[in-house]
């Protein structure tokens, strides 16, 4: 084999090996590298109660309620399988909406109750002008 071809094979093998290592590492890290817990993960393997965690999912439509003190809200974060009620005191980000993604930072009081001290709105991959979205942009804001 010519030296040139030898180098070609060597580098191709190296690249394939590196790619394989990355793919393995990424799939192995799937749970650790996740930025937040989904409600069904929490029910499957509940995180320690005294540990700050992030809970992410969709805000259930019609679940957003303002509490009597005027600055606290309650809503339900859900995924396909499960739902967890969240309580939060503070200012919600502009993009926070019912039916849209959210990441809540805070801690669990127990398996059924999450208290958030920070709320991040998660944007999805759809981009469109308001006239195309119709009434979608008017839903579920607390006023």
């Amino acid at each position, binding site marked *: 084999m010519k030296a040139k071809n030898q180098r070609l094979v060597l580098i191709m093998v190296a690249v394939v090996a590196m790619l394989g*290592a990355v793919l393995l590492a990424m799939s192995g890290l799937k749970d650790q590298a996740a930025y*937040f817990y989904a409600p069904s993960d929490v029910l499957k393997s509940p995180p320690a109660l005294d540990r700050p965690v992030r809970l992410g999912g969709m805000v259930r439509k019609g679940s957003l309620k303002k509490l009597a003190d005027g600055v606290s809200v309650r809503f339900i974060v859900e995924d396909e399988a499960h739902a967890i009620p969240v309580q939060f005191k503070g200012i919600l980000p502009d993009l926070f909406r019912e039916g849209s993604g959210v990441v809540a930072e805070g801690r669990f009081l127990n398996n059924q109750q999450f208290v958030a001290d920070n709320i991040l709105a998660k944007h*999805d991959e759809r*981009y*469109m002008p308001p006239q195309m979205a119709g009434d979608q942009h008017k839903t579920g804001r607390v006023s």
Partner: protein
Amino acid sequence: MHAYANPARFLKIARPLTHWFGWIGGLLLLLCVGWGVFAGPADYLQGETVRIMYIHVPAAWLGMAGWSGIAIASAMQLIWRHPLAGIAARACALPGAVFAALCLATGSIWGRPTWGTWWEWDGRLTSMLVLFFLYLAYMALASAEQEADGEAGGEGRMTAIFGLVGAINLPIIHYSVLWWRTLHQGQSISLMKGSSIDGSMLWPLLGAAVGASLLFGAVVLMRMRAELARTKLEMRMRRLAAS
């Protein structure tokens, strides 16, 4: 490709190409960003902040394309010892780093009103920051190796290996939003599934991306020509000193 191993032949093509790429790319970029920012629609959810996308997305693509260029050129250098490959790889580093930094900065500015945070250590954001650091490390290594080689004028093989190995970050960036749960949204434009961005925003975005790519190409060609001129000058100076 080996036809262009001769610098004179390469320069003959590179000189006019630099101008074409630079002017067409710059104009296209300005036009399309202007179109998106001033004439395009606001988003139904994000409102006006969506306009940051016309800078952020092309910058992100080119930040990644820059390292793809480094990796491909490095492989050509290591396998075929193409004399211009190393120069091309090193020429991609600075514009790539600038675009990666632009992507991080605009993303941060977009994240504050949209997500409610300047920065979060999620998979996409972190891997993009790693890409920026890789660029800095690559440039430091390239200049250190060239300095160490000095008069010997080595090929910069260490730099090339680093450029090739650093490419493992590219699939991580791409798949971070698909395989891991991240705060960053999933991909909006895919070759297989089309786009979930409305046409009124997609076209100026694609135009801006093409314009920025041409501009990127012009900068790479310019830097390659500067590097070739510098080598030529050094050789001439050495010959003068010897005689």
